[in-house]
């Protein structure tokens, strides 16, 4: 456990490039605030001043992805580019422990961004919290943040295996913005696209989050929240397999500092 905690701390403090006061506060707290201002003023300009209320939960969930995903992938890419990943692979450290440790402290950053977004919407347009089913809403939020974190771990493997990994992250963040239902309702897309969207984190959990926000019991949308959790689990497992395969390939080919695949 002590080893694990040491890795949680060192991978976060040593490899998270935004861990200085200005960048951290501005990224985790102020960026969501600015995003809310953009969406609300644009909504007002487009003739729907109240529309930001309907996006609020979606934007909040999206901001979790915007902070968690780059945070975790930095943890991997800087480990390789800084030359420290070779020490990890040379050591007898438990790989699963190391893989899991990289994500732990990025998880609360997502939650902080989520809260900052909702507070801003509440202050700016008076988001109504009076009917929220808090138990279900909090559970939904925690599970969505977990599945985004799992996606971050999955993308982390790409960040050490490919030089141009950031394209993959850009695609995932873009897909979450467009297809998760955060802002654009999912039902306007063709059925096939809707099914693809359900393979992304956020999409399933957001249904439950929106439902519990208006007071529905979690049981009504438990299927969605279970699917959200399973989606995260699949990404997490795939990421771990990728992490293991990367090590084997990098050792075999001597390509730790190059494109491994």
């Amino acid at each position: 456990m002590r080893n694990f905690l040491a890795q949680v701390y060192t991978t976060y403090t040593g490899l998270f490039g935004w861990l200085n006061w200005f960048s951290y506060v501005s990224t985790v707290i102020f960026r969501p605030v600015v995003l809310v201002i953009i969406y609300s003023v644009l909504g007002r300009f487009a003739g729907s001043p109240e529309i930001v209320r309907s996006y609020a939960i979606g934007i909040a969930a999206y901001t979790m992805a915007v902070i968690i995903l780059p945070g975790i992938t930095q943890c991997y890419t800087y480990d390789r580019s800084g030359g420290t990943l070779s020490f990890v692979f040379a050591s007898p450290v438990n790989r699963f422990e190391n893989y899991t440790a990289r994500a732990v402290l990025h998880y609360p950053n997502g939650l902080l961004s989520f809260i900052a977004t909702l507070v801003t919407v509440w202050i700016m347009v008076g988001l109504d919290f009076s009917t929220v089913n808090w138990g279900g809403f909090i559970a939904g939020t925690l599970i969505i943040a977990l599945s985004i974190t799992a996606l971050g771990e999955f993308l982390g493997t790409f960040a050490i295996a490919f030089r141009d990994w950031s394209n993959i992250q850009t695609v995932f963040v873009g897909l979450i913005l467009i297809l998760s239902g955060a802002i654009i309702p999912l039902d306007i897309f063709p059925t096939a696209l809707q099914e693809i969207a359900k393979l992304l984190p956020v999409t399933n959990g957001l249904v439950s989050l929106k439902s519990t926000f208006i007071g529905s019991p979690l049981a009504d949308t438990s299927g969605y929240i279970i699917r959200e959790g399973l989606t995260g689990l699949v990404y997490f497992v795939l990421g771990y397999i990728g992490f293991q395969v990367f090590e084997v390939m990098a050792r075999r080919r001597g390509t730790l500092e190059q494109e491994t695949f």
Partner: protein
Amino acid sequence: MVNQLRAMLASVIQQWKQISFSFGNLGFFLATIPMAVVFTWIAMQRGDNEVLAYLSIGLPLMTVWSGVAFRIGYTLTTELSNQVLQFVYISRTPVIIVSLGKALAQVLWGLPTGIISFMVIFLMTRTLPDISNPAALIISLLLVVIGITVASLFFSPMMVLVGGRGGFFNTIIPFGLVLSGFLFPIDRLPLVLKVLARLMPTSWAMDGVRLSLGNGGSWPEIFSSWGMCLLTSVLLGGITYAMFRIVERRIRITGTRDFY
């Protein structure tokens, strides 16, 4: 003056050659698509042609700004960390001329992102903006490009002076989007933000864009927005120049070149 222009052109070419056209930079262009889709979708909710026309022009410019501000902002810092900034200072060409050339190259490189956004909007709305004064629109767009360049260049010496680290632009770029007037006219903002926005040259240039669309505006209004755009560009350029001088002072006089 001619020599300085020649030096600036040379730095445009140098930066252009240095910009990598690798597969890795594909993300720079891909990132514009989701933003364009979502913002267009929001604007389409009421189907107001005036809003869609404004966004058809503003959204592509927004994507250019959000792409290049980051790159231009890091220009001087990157040279500092790569230990090549001292060579720029050995040359007799003022470093702001060199940096301006580099900034122009970055803006030129970022312009295709605007085209991608424009195509996304067109595909979604199937309408082209109703332009009432094409000549005024072209000049306003040129002023927007100048505004983007000046506003982005501002961050280049600033990054060195404040020792900006990773993540420095994470809030600055979205905040710049709010104040730039690309997504909505500045008069829609709360008073405090409106005042701040008026310090940005692009907010005035976008007024010129708005007055060239739809029902249009009178020439005095358009001239006034152009004049204010140029004035704020000069003002911001002056501050940027002063910051470049401070950076130079650190290098030549106090000898703290490689320190923040």
